[in-house]
């Protein structure tokens, strides 16, 4: 099927038929292009492919920060609350993280882990820098002392 016809019959904003017996999940569907990801937060049957026709689009997530150092997330809270109330709904880790940061859910444990790892990395980085500085200072001192000794003996 040509691309424009496919887009016409299966729009990314959703519209797939809900099958009651099947499991559904709220997850991210990658759009955007190469090296520039952009995600839709969608409700979709769990067994469907990543960019298959979703039941409904619940929001967007732009993971690249803008000029004000912000990552933009939009959530259709009313519809999210509806889908959370239905049965057989699975929510993926990435979406749980976003909902946790938004204050919709309690903060997801992966966020704590990320934060802890980032802090540990930053600490080791700082310690490394400190050690390097100390080394440099010591070398400079030795250099200063060496010519003094030479002049003193001469």
């Amino acid at each position, binding site marked *: 099927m040509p691309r424009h016809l496919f887009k016409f019959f299966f729009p990314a904003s959703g519209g797939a038929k809900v099958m009651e017996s099947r499991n559904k999940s709220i997850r991210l569907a990658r759009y955007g292009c190469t090296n520039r990801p952009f995600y839709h937060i969608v409700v979709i049957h769990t067994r469907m492919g990543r960019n298959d026709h979703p039941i409904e689009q619940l*929001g967007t997530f732009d993971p690249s*920060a803008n*000029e*004000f*150092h*912000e*990552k*933009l*997330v*939009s*959530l*259709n*809270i*009313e*519809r999210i609350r509806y889908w959370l109330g239905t049965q057989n709904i699975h929510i993926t880790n990435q979406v749980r993280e*976003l909902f946790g*940061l*938004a*204050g919709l859910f309690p*903060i997801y444990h992966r*966020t*704590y882990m*990320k*934060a802890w790892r*980032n*802090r540990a990395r*930053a600490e080791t980085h700082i310690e490394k820098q400190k050690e390097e500085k100390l080394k440099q200072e010591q070398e400079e001192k030795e250099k200063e002392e060496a010519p003094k000794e030479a002049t003193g003996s001469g």
Partner: protein
Amino acid sequence: MFLNRVLPRNMLLSSRSIATKTITPAISAIFFKPEVQELLLNLTRIDLSKVFRRQKYGQVFEPPEYKFLTTEEVEKLQKESYERAVKKMQVPPIVPPRDDSKLEKLSYDPEILGHDVSKYVFTDITFGISDPKRIIVVREPDGLLREANTFERHRMNSVYFSRPECTLKHPEMFEEENLKSLCNRKEYVFILDRACTQFEPDDGLYHNILNTTFNHIHENNGFELLRSSRHFGSLVFFLCNNNMIDNLLLQNLHCNMMEDAVWLIKVYQFVNPEAKCAQMKHIEGQDVAFVQSYIDQDSPTKERLTQALESYSDVASVSM
């Protein structure tokens, strides 16, 4: 260097240089009183040829229609067009500016300090919620979840719910220097119309722009340029709020617009209920005495106004 990019520094007009009162909720409530609204509408002096003039904003014009009508039909149409004009002349709301220093802190989780280097901005895109009521929250890198400030709200609203007349970045004409040069060219209506569509009425920048423009109008006596535009009401309210109505009153007296002078002082009384002349009540047919009471009790420039009032009453007595 980081903060320079976050805050639109060049946009922030120095509000300290302009000694103006900020709008409090009490004053905003006075503005929305029906009596005050009526007075402001009367002061606007609706001129239909000016209200429905051709404004050249790049649209394609259609040629005018000509019809044969009876006198009754013409009167009916004129009445309808006047009603449309009244709707068009509605004064933009005057509300207190949103205070960005008192943002609500929704939760603080110091355990997730450093989860990301950038902020996360969450916007509720639920159908059918208006821009000022939309929920927009920000998660800071240090774990603080707070309400979005005015600038962030403006950007998110224009990203997800864009309007053609409102740009994502504020136009350069509102920067201090450009605004000054526009004011010097007396493009007041252009500035105020653009500001009205660009900003929310509770934006601090909007208030600064209005203050500078109205101050410039007051200093250069450009009141006539705003007449029969929707901003004349806000100008009058601004002048009353800052006790600066003398220039406008003087102009009214010079132009023999006694009615306008009386309405102006009535608005002044509403806005300043603690002023000395606020107890004075207007009796029909005694306009001069009413204005005189204001001049005697509250006016900062008494001599010029008394002279103008005397010359007005002389002319009136001769013409009687």
